């Protein structure tokens, strides 16, 4: 089982508590909080967690990075921390230096393909890119023919069409046209685009897990405070059962994300089992979001539907995150095809492989 550094978790929690409190950010009239939060994260080396120390990063384990991102989910942190970690991971795959500052990655949709032309410029369109508008640099997985390459592009050199997404974090469209990257290198031997999608998907699974834990707490706390018909609404069986269902969906997400994270962290190579775990996690955590968000809103009544209340900071991100790096449907089709091809008698061995 993967070990996670408790001191790292404590330190990160403190940063989020001090500088990313959802209520504080929700009421903020300026965006000064953004640079304060980012600086604190950068100073503690968290933003380059997955960059090896040789390349100027903090060389944390995959488990540590994933756990930080679960925390980021718990606080609904509205900055590209996961994206920057993933960008650093990707650059490091080709031993490319990692810049400081906010980064994002492209593509975020498995079916989007960015091509590299004869003269090493990038060509193509990527939809649903998180935080493209605030990222200084974009790390791109692009293809020269069939050969994957990793490139760093300056945000200023791309055409970005803003789309706030459901959360306001941004799910922007980037058009690469004759775009010259700042640096580019072939991906290492054996690297596949799917490996990148798996990392992105698992980041989202962990964030979803974190956010669901928070909305479970918000909903149970609220139900115990709110009085209707002369008692706390938590005393009504219908409400209790709904909260039990919310707890179950949260539990499922915790288990699914944790298992995928552990698999990736301990795998010596990227293989079918890694795919199986990560795909299952992205499918199942994505499935949790629908019912969980609905129940959390239902318990809160009208107040939870306001901009002033913090519930939407979670639910809107949950709705964005389940779409990133492959929806449940996309992953399910791939997983189903794999299962069908292996045949009925191989299903049980697959389920019990680890």
């Amino acid at each position, binding site marked *: 089982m993967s070990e996670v550094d408790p001191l790292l978790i404590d330190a990160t929690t403190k940063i989020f508590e001090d500088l990313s409190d959802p209520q504080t950010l929700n009421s903020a009239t300026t965006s000064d909080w953004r640079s304060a939060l980012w600086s604190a994260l950068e100073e503690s080396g968290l933003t380059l967690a997955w960059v090896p120390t040789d390349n100027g990063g903090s060389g944390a384990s995959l488990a540590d990075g994933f756990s930080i991102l679960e925390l980021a989910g718990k606080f609904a942190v509205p900055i590209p921390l996961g994206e920057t970690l993933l960008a650093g991971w990707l650059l490091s795959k080709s031993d490319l230096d990692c810049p400081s500052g906010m980064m994002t990655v492209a593509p975020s949709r498995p079916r989007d393909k960015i091509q590299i032309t004869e003269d090493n410029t990038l060509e193509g369109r990527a939809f649903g890119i998180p935080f493209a508008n605030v990222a200084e640099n974009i790390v791109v997985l692009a293809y020269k023919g069939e050969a994957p390459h990793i490139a760093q592009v300056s945000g200023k050199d791309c055409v970005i069409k803003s789309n706030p997404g459901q959360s306001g974090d941004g799910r922007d469209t980037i058009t690469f046209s004759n775009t010259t990257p700042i640096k580019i290198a072939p991906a290492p031997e054996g690297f596949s685009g799917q490996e990148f999608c798996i990392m992105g998907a698992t980041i989202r699974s962990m964030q979803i897990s974190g956010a669901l834990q928070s909305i479970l707490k918000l909903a149970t706390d609220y139900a*115990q405070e709110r009085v209707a018909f002369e008692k706390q609404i938590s005393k009504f069986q219908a409400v209790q059962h709904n909260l039990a269902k919310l707890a179950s969906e949260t539990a499922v997400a915790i288990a699914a994300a944790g298992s995928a994270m552990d698999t990736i962290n301990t795998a010596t190579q990227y293989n079918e089992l890694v795919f199986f775990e990560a795909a299952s996690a992205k499918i199942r955590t994505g*499935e949790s979001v629908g019912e969980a968000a609905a129940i959390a809103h239902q318990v809160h009544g009208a107040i939870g539907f306001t901009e002033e209340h913090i519930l939407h900071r979670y639910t809107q991100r949950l709705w964005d995150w389940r779409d990133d790096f492959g929806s449940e449907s996309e992953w399910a089709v791939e997983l189903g095809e794999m299962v069908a091809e292996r045949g009925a008698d191989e299903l049980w061995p697959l389920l*019990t492989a680890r």
Partner: protein
Amino acid sequence: MSQAIQFDPIRLPREAEELRLEVRDFLAEEIANGGFDPHRTIMKSGFDREFSKRVGARGWIGMTWPKKYGGHERSFLERYVVTEEFRSQNAPVTSHFTADRQSGPVLLKYAEEHIKEDILPKITAGDCCFCIGLSEPNSGSDLFAASTRATQTDGGYLINGTKLWTSNAHQAEYMIGLFRTSPPTKENRRHGLTQFLVNLKQPGITINPVRNMAGKHDFNEVLFEDLFIPDDHLLGEVDSAWKQATSELAYERSGPERFLETFYVLPELVRVIGQKPDARAAEGIGRLVAQLHTLRRMSVSVNGMLQAGKEPVIEGSIVKDVGTIWEQNLPAKARDLAAFVDDTPSNRSNFDELLQYATNIAPKLTIQGGTTEVLRGIIARGLGLR
């Protein structure tokens, strides 16, 4: 809110995986030799005393119990592997399963020494079947409303009343029964019930079959008329059965048998869909497999946390709640996904037969062993809401 929900991503240890290979070999041999027929287990009966004896001879009953009583002092996780492998092959475990899972542990904790020495080795040998006498015509979920009376007499108790829905009473040697020794008190409505070991091969007991809507005889009505139970068959403390429902419930609620009862539908679905599914079928299979995988990981985690000395009560209830709903819905989802598969006898007859059977028994899955409604109340309590 109470403690945060936890599902450590526990992996089965090496010795458990080695055991898995042994169990697979055993089951493959049994099937090849005609030792059991998986199809028959599903459609007709999982009760096979001779099979249970062969399992006992391999040391796979009472695996976690002390050796002095015929057990094998192995881990929860090793037992987990045996249980899930048996379920995956539809092995006929009915004769020994209840004794292994819950009755034996109750005896271990609460029975007198000479009873343990007498009965436990019989269970581990696969030669003793137990049933559970809890529900009555007027009480099921409301366990502590039980009214079958145990009246003190010379040297023991006389039992009068009726137990209902008692699975396998007609094939069992013993029952662990819950009987009323005192009325409830004002302070504690759960006071007054006592657990007893009941030898079913005695005068004073009449067992009547109750056929279920799938045509199977599992349930029974058990009538007690002045049945005599000696004092030394009382388990634990008189009037205090409510204290004896311990954290056993965590593993009792969350084992693989709680989500694998209709599993056989899934590989058959994959078989009829074929190796090149369209997007709709592929998506459906992918979702089902992802859901099942996650359930299994949760179940392994609960058992692993138990092994490590933790008490995952809310997690255990969650696994049972999510698991039973999943296994209940599986036939319906399989039906949807197979809707356009060609209807040739060779392709679909086995699948259709199993699908219809699973659909027929599906209603009981969220009722047996603790209804969904009760489970959600337990989860709500775990969240601090009750």
